[in-house]
């Protein structure tokens, strides 16, 4: 049986929202080393999520404004309409680019990127800088980091922090959804139309992510994230769910 003491400690703290970025990275590594089907890891995650969720019930519930439900329901449908339109737009834009077997051609993979505008969302950027430079031991510090928020259809926020001209980058996310069973997210550095595979990752159960991209960014002008099989891919097999224009030189 594998040792789970360290993982238990980190999961317990993470379930309360108190984990520092360095420990989050450490937990991600530990969990990865145990694999996605580690039964004890899943049990610990579930148990401590229940404890944390239960703590919310220790508070007296408060009255919810009667209009809040209707306002929320109205937003549901507003959101659905927007998403439907986006799907339609993509269908028109992508045409019949899918290849047999569900694998998309490189042209199809890159087409959505054409529409990407570089963006710095201040709150994401500010949070990312804070997280990336908060390491006590300096291991997570970036000098004069550039932070770029990803854009995409997936749930949550994702940003990349890097120092132009220096290798490596940090990916920082919040509110990210768990990829489907048997899948992972995979980062790609794209130069022109040539994608170079980056790390595969799965967000924490609370949707947060803090992971290091250990590779050469020089020459890449776009970073993208796709959903890939758990074994990771050498070429993207799906359309990116997140994309960001980067300037590495």
């Amino acid at each position: 049986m594998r040792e789970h003491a360290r993982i238990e400690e980190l999961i317990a703290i993470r379930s309360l929202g108190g984990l520092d970025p360095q420990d989050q990275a450490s937990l991600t590594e530990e969990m990865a080393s145990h694999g996605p089907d580690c039964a004890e890891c899943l049990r610990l995650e579930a148990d401590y999520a229940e404890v944390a969720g239960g703590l919310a019930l220790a508070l007296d519930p408060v009255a919810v404004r009667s209009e809040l439900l209707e306002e929320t329901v109205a937003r549901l449908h507003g959101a659905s309409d927007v998403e439907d339109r986006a799907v339609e737009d993509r269908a028109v834009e992508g045409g019949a680019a899918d290849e047999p077997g569900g694998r998309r051609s490189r042209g199809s993979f890159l087409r959505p990127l054409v529409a990407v505008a570089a963006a710095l969302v201040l709150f994401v950027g500010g949070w990312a800088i804070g997280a990336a430079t908060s390491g006590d031991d300096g291991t997570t510090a970036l000098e004069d980091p550039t932070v770029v928020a990803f854009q995409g259809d997936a749930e949550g926020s994702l940003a990349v922090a890097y120092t132009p001209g220096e290798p490596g980058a940090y990916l920082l996310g919040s509110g990210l959804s768990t990829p489907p069973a048997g899948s992972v997210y995979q980062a790609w550095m794209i130069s022109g139309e040539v994608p170079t595979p980056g790390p595969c990752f799965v967000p924490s159960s609370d949707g947060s992510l803090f992971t290091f991209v250990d590779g050469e960014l020089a020459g890449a002008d776009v970073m993208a994230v796709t959903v890939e099989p758990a074994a990771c891919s050498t070429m993207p097999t799906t359309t990116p769910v997140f994309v960001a224009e980067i300037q590495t030189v």
Partner: protein
Amino acid sequence: MLVAESHAHTNRDAGVAVELSGARDRELVHRIGRGDDEAFRDLFGRYAPSALALARRIVRQPFLAEEIVQEAYLAVWRNPSAYDQRRGSVRAWLMGMVHHRAVDAVRREETQRRRVEDARASDPIVVDDPADEVAREVDVPHERRAIRAALDELPAEQRQVIELMYFDGLSQSTISERLGLPLGTVKSRTLLGMRRLRASMAGVER
């Protein structure tokens, strides 16, 4: 003996009720996945009062708290398949999203120290609403009592770090600085406290 048996019955009944409740929640999420508005409304009605209490406790701003709860529910609607039963109950998932968003909001907006100091200086920040009493009455008094009892039974130093982390949104390193404790002590107190809570809640939680 009779008392012990009565407690056993109570716990078993509560456990059955909790499991039924969990199954119902999972069914609601399944229906939400099919675009069922009514299921969404049911889930909202079940947990919004507690979710709002949690968000208000952390961000201490009623309007921001509403926005956080709304965003968490929208996330459920947009991506119900993100719920993974292996990682806990629907309630834990939902409260986790609310907590995560609330803590993010607090940490983004200003330094935690300033927020806590401001909060202490101007308590009570959340104005009591007479309708809150109604919400309390329709909630889950058995679970609430059990969880409060479990918290009360913790050694004070363990309860303190857990409350600072969960309800004030402080990170382990901030608590370490705030309390003047080694980081390792904060971690170990958190783990010990969480283990106790886990054991205490085992008969009640989903």
